[in-house]
C-alpha cells in the first residue's frame, strides 16, 4: 500500500492546478458560508428627513418629551443619512445610495400631543421585489424598535406626571403654583376635617368627597403599572434547553472547516478511485487467480503464490480513503489554526478536535470512494461529488422551524444518510462543547463509513 500512497502523492504533486483548486475552492466556499452565518443582516442605509422644528417637544401633563428623541431612536436602528428635504431623499433612493427614506413630518408633535390622532411617518423605497421585501422587513423592525423606545420615554413622562398628581409638591414649571397638595394626601386631610364636623348635610357631602378622593388616589396609583404594562406587555426570558451556548462566530468556524473537510475529502477520494479505472490500472493492480485453480496446483515458479493480486480491492479502497482523509485532515487543521488567530477557540480541546476531524475525514473519504467506484470515470466522479457535497452542506444547516414540518423531516433524513451533518455536530461538540455529545456523532460517522465502504466495494466488483 505504501508504494501506491507514494505514487498518488507524486501524481498529486504533479497536478498543481488540481491541488490548487482543491485547496482554494473549498476554503473560498467555506469562508463565504462562514461570513454569511456569522454576520447577521447589516443595518439598512436609510435617508431621514426630519421636518420638525428644532427643540420641538410633546407635552405629557407637566412633562415634555423632545421630538428629536424619536429621530435619535430611529438613527440607532439604521445607517442614517440625514437629508433636508423630501425631494433630496427621493433622489438618494433613485441613485441607489440609500435603500429607503423616512420623512418625519412637521406636525408629528401636535398629532401625538392631541391624544386623538396618531403621529404618522412617510416611508419611501424603491428596488426590485427582493430589495423591497428586504427593505420592508428591515425598516418595519427598525421603526418598531424606534416606536418602542419613544413610547417608553412618553410612558416615563406620563408616569412622572401621575406621580406628581399623587404626591403633590412643586411642578418645576416657571409660574406654576408651588407646594401643591397631592391626590393621595387629600383623604387623610379630609378625614380630619370631617371628624371635627357635627352631623349635618355638609359633613355628609364631605364624606362623599372623601370616598371619591380615596378611590381616585388608589386608581391613579394603579395607572402607573398599567402604563408600564402597555409599554412592554410581555418580557422575554431565554433559556437554552441543551448543551452550552455556541457563539455564532465559532459555529461559523466549525461550518467552514466541515465544508472544507468534505470537499477535499470527497473529491480526492472519488477522483483517486475513478482515476485507477480510467487509466485502466485497476485491473492490473487487483487482478487475481484465474479459473478454479486450487492452491495445490500452483507451480513453484509462480511469482507470488500467497498473494495473487498486487493489492486487494479493499486495500486499494483503503489506500484512497486514507490518502484523501489525511490530506483533508491536514487542510482542516491548518484552517482551524489559521482561523484561531482571529477567532477565540478553546485549544485545550485540541484532542477532541482531532478525533472529530479524523472521524469526519474517514466518513467523507468513504463517501468519496463510493462515488469514485460507482461513477467509473474521473469527470463523472468529480461532478457527482461536487453536485452532492454543496446541497448536503446547505441541507444540514436548515434550522428546524424555518421550513414546514414535513420538509424539515425530509432534509433531516437526507442529512442523516450522509456524513456532513454528523461531522458538523461532532466538530461543534469538539470545538464548542455543543450538543448532542461527540460520542453520538462519532458513532453515526463510523456507521456511515461502514455503509459507504461497503457501497464502494460493491462498485469495484468488476475491474474493467
Amino acid at each position: 500500500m505504501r508504494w501506491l500512497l507514494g505514487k498518488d502523492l507524486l501524481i498529486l504533486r504533479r497536478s498543481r492546478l488540481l491541488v490548487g483548486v482543491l485547496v482554494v475552492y473549498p476554503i473560498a466556499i467555506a469562508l463565504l458560508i462562514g461570513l454569511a452565518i456569522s454576520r447577521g443582516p447589516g443595518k439598512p442605509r436609510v435617508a431621514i428627513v426630519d421636518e420638525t422644528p428644532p427643540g420641538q417637544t410633546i407635552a405629557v401633563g407637566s412633562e415634555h418629551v423632545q421630538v428629536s428623541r424619536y429621530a435619535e431612536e430611529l438613527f440607532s436602528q439604521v445607517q442614517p443619512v440625514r437629508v433636508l428635504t423630501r425631494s433630496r431623499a427621493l433622489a438618494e433612493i433613485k441613485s441607489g445610495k440609500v435603500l429607503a427614506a423616512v420623512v418625519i413630518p412637521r406636525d408629528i408633535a401636535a398629532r401625538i400631543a392631541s391624544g386623538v390622532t396618531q403621529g404618522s411617518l412617510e416611508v419611501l423605497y424603491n428596488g426590485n421585489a427582493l430589495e423591497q421585501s428586504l427593505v420592508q422587513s428591515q425598516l418595519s423592525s427598525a421603526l418598531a424598535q424606534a416606536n418602542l423606545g419613544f413610547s417608553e420615554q412618553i410612558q416615563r413622562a406620563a408616569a412622572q406626571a401621575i406621580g406628581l398628581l399623587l404626591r403633590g409638591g412643586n411642578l418645576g414649571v416657571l409660574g406654576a403654583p408651588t407646594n401643591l397638595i397631592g391626590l393621595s394626601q387629600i383623604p387623610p386631610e379630609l378625614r380630619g376635617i370631617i371628624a371635627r364636623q357635627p352631623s349635618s348635610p355638609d359633613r355628609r357631602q364631605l364624606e362623599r368627597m372623601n370616598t371619591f378622593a380615596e378611590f381616585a388616589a388608589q386608581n391613579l396609583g394603579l395607572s402607573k403599572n398599567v402604563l408600564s404594562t402597555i409599554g412592554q406587555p410581555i418580557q422575554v426570558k431565554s433559556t437554552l434547553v441543551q448543551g452550552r451556548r455556541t457563539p455564532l462566530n465559532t459555529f461559523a468556524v466549525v461550518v467552514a472547516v466541515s465544508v472544507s473537510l468534505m470537499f477535499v475529502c470527497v473529491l480526492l477520494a472519488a477522483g483517486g478511485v475513478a482515476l485507477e479505472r480510467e487509466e485502466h490500472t485497476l485491473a492490473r493492480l487487483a487482478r487475481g487467480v484465474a479459473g478454479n485453480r486450487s492452491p495445490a496446483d500452483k507451480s513453484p515458479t509462480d511469482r507470488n503464490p500467497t498473494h495473487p493480486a498486487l493489492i486487494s480491492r479493499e486495500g486499494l479502497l483503503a489506500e484512497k480513503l486514507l490518502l484523501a482523509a489525511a490530506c483533508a485532515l491536514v487542510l482542516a487543521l491548518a484552517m482551524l489554526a489559521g482561523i484561531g488567530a482571529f477567532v477565540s477557540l478553546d485549544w485545550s480541546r485540541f484532542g477532541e478536535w482531532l478525533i472529530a476531524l479524523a472521524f469526519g475525514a474517514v466518513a467523507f473519504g468513504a463517501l468519496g470512494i463510493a462515488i469514485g467506484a460507482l461513477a467509473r470515470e474521473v469527470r463523472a466522479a468529480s461532478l457527482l461529488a461536487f453536485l452532492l457535497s454543496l446541497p448536503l452542506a446547505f441541507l444540514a444547516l436548515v434550522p428546524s422551524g424555518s421550513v414546514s414540518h414535513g420538509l424539515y423531516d425530509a432534509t433531516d433524513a437526507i442529512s442523516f444518510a450522509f456524513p456532513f451533518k454528523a461531522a458538523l455536530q461532532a466538530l461543534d461538540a469538539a470545538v464548542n462543547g455543543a450538543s448532542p455529545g461527540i460520542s453520538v456523532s462519532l458513532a453515526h460517522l463510523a456507521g456511515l463509513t461502514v455503509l459507504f465502504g461497503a457501497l464502494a466495494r460493491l462498485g469495484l466488483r468488476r475491474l474493467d
Partner: protein
Amino acid sequence: MSPVLSVKGLAKRYGEREALRDIEFDVDPGELVAVVGPNGAGKTTLLSILAGVQPASAGTVDGPGAGAAIGWAPQQPAVYAKLSVAENLRLFARLEGVVDPQAAVERMLEQTGLRERADERVERLSGGNRQRVNVALGLLADPPALALDEPTSALDSPQRERVWEFVGALARAGTAVLFSTHHLGEVSRNATRAIVLADGELLFDGAPSELIAANGGGGERDFEAAFVAFLKERGHS
C-alpha cells in the same frame, strides 16, 4: 514439453448469456498464439479470465503461466500518465514483489528500447511507445506466458511493426504469448498458431496456414479471406 497454460472446460456466463463455453487448449513455451474472431466472440473475455481480471464461471486454467503468473497487457495501456516510463516500471516491479526492482526496470527499458525516454512522462509518449510500456509492465516479473489484448489496435503500421519485433523476440526467448487482434494480416505474419472463437465457442485451433489451406487460400494475404470463408461455412457470417 509441458504446457505453460492448460485450459480445460472454461466457461463464462453473464446472467443468461454465455460469453464462453467449454474452451479447451494448451499453450507451450515460445508459442505465439493469435486469438481471433468477430466482435463479441469472447476474445477479451478469454484473455481477461486467463489474466485473472475476472473469474470463470466453470473450468480450470493450470500450468506455470496460469493466474497471477501470466503477464498481461490490456487493450488500453494500463499505465499512469503522470508518471515517467521508469517510475511506472519501478512502481509495478515493487508492487509485484520483484526481488530487484531496479534491475527489472533496467531490463525492461533495454528490451523495449525506451531507455532514452525513461524519464519522460507517459502522457507525452506516442501511442506506440505507450503500448510498449504497457507490454513491458506485463513482463516485469519475467512471466512464462503473456496475454496481449489487441496490442496494436490503435497504432499505425510502423508502430505495429515495432511492437511485433519486440513480441517476436520475447517468444524466441521462450515466453508463450497469446494475443487477440483484428488485424488478420498480423496473424499469418507473426503467429505460430491461431485460435478462432465465435459466439463464445472455439471453432479452430491450429497453424494459420492450416486454416488458409482448408479454406482454399494460399499465401499470407489470404488469411483474412480464409477466415471469413471459414466463419461463413460454420454459420457465423
